């Protein structure tokens, strides 16, 4: 019997993408490819054999350069991806804030999206209507709440998305860079909220390029490079590693699709 359930446990997780080099250059090439059933592709491991355990009440920072696998990791934890190999155990409800607008429909108003988003996350209509006022208050976007979200600025989008994700009171909150879009007062408000979340025993995963945020708020940090953890431990050391390895002399991006 497991004595204490751990909210997040990943064992040997690998995520493989098939990168298809599309766009045949000529029509002839297109046809010849079509008839010979030859598509050029190569496999690429966005994450390689990842092991990770995150405890209750822990705020984990995930740092690394673009293309290192941070978002893929979050998507696996949020249940959006089912990994190619490995075991994923996630206990409790997850609210993902992945990329801008955690699943908003741009033709619907902010208010309608609160409901839709809550239903998507698995909450009932009644629960969402009960939380609606608090969400609107936290988002603090005024009359825009009744305008279609396609008219929102990216800051408003973020405000609303963050408000929904935190007010539904999930066990695990997954935040992918999006806080960078909010203005300073809103960011402060968000981190205030995150702190209270952690104090309440919730688990938070934070992907960010702001090393200050990692140092200031995270209990622990991992450094990802080419789909592998190069470091897992004290935020100071993870940040140091990030700063050392992100110097311009280093190759900045992983190589992309060679045909």
């Amino acid at each position, binding site marked *: 019997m497991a004595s204490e359930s751990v909210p997040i446990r990943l064992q040997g997780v690998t995520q493989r993408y098939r990168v298809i080099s599309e766009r045949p250059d000529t029509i002839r090439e297109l046809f010849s490819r079509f008839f010979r059933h030859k598509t050029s592709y190569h496999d690429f491991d966005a994450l390689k054999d990842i092991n990770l355990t995150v405890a209750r009440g822990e705020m984990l920072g995930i740092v690394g350069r673009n293309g290192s696998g941070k978002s893929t990791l979050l998507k696996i934890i949020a249940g959006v*991806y089912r990994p190619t190999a490995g075991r994923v155990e996630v206990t409790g409800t997850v609210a993902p804030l*992945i*990329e801008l607008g955690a*699943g908003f429909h741009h033709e*619907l108003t902010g208010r309608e999206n609160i409901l839709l988003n809550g239903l998507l996350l698995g909450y009932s209509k009644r629960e969402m209507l009960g939380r609606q006022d608090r969400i609107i208050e936290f988002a603090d976007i005024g009359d825009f709440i009744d305008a279609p979200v396609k008219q929102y600025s990216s800051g408003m989008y973020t405000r609303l998305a963050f408000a929904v994700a935190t007010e539904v009171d999930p066990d695990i909150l997954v935040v992918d860079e999006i806080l960078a879009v909010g203005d300073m007062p809103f960011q402060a408000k968000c981190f205030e909220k995150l702190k209270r979340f952690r104090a309440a025993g919730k688990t938070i995963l934070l992907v960010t390029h702001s090393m200050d945020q990692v140092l200031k708020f995270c209990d622990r940090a991992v450094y990802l490079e080419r789909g592998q953890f190069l470091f897992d431990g004290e935020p100071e050391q993870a940040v140091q590693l990030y700063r050392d390895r992100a110097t311009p002399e280093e190759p900045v991006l992983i190589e992309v699709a060679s045909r």
Partner: protein
Amino acid sequence: MNELVRETYRYRELIWALAMKELKIRYKRSVLGFLWALLNPMLLMLVLSVVFSTIMKINIPHYAIFLLSVLLPWTFFSQSLSYAVESIVGNADLIKKVRVAKLVFPVAAVASNMINLLLSIIPLALIVVLMGHPFHLTWIYLPVPLLALTIFTLGATFFFAAANVYYRDVAHILQIVLQAWFYITPIIYSIDFFPEKYRWIFKLNPIQFVLNGFRLSVYYGLLPTPESIFASFLCAFIALFIGFAVFRRHQNDFVFYV
């Protein structure tokens, strides 16, 4: 199949919200809004009456009712498919960011069109009264063919929605298929127009059994034979079984292809 029922029930509120969203967007910025669902069949009837009774001189009494009784359910079927085929690809933004049961999208597409179909029964009844066609008691039988039609449509939508994730050509091919299917199905005509020895050809078309009950009960005031009812549900469940099996098998990979 259990999974389908369970998940549909579990996500009923989400499906409803998605269906309403679809309708809202469809009628957005139109002055009459939802009224179009009622007006469409009325206007269609007007056109049909003029074309078929006055210009083409078809001698089927109350041809508009003869036609609409099958055309409205057919429209539900073809519209559901046209919407659902894009339902996974079109909701890529949601699928890529939130963990959600993928079946809610095609089911919502069918649900929104079902609302349209149910609304269009009102003008159909109105037309029956206006044209002085007898209002048959067999109208109360309509929920039975409606059920068979819904099951059949769901099966088809699951299949096409899944296939379109991998080959976007599917959405285009579907439009052609629907066009052809419309003409080989007894909608604007009846099987009875053909000599007995050719009628078996129409029996190869599964949706024919499903649609049959509508015309019989609304236009003729008759009930289908037990064999015909059995055939309609058999076709419907086979479609659902195959369609959902394909969808289920691939649903976890959709996110990588949308």
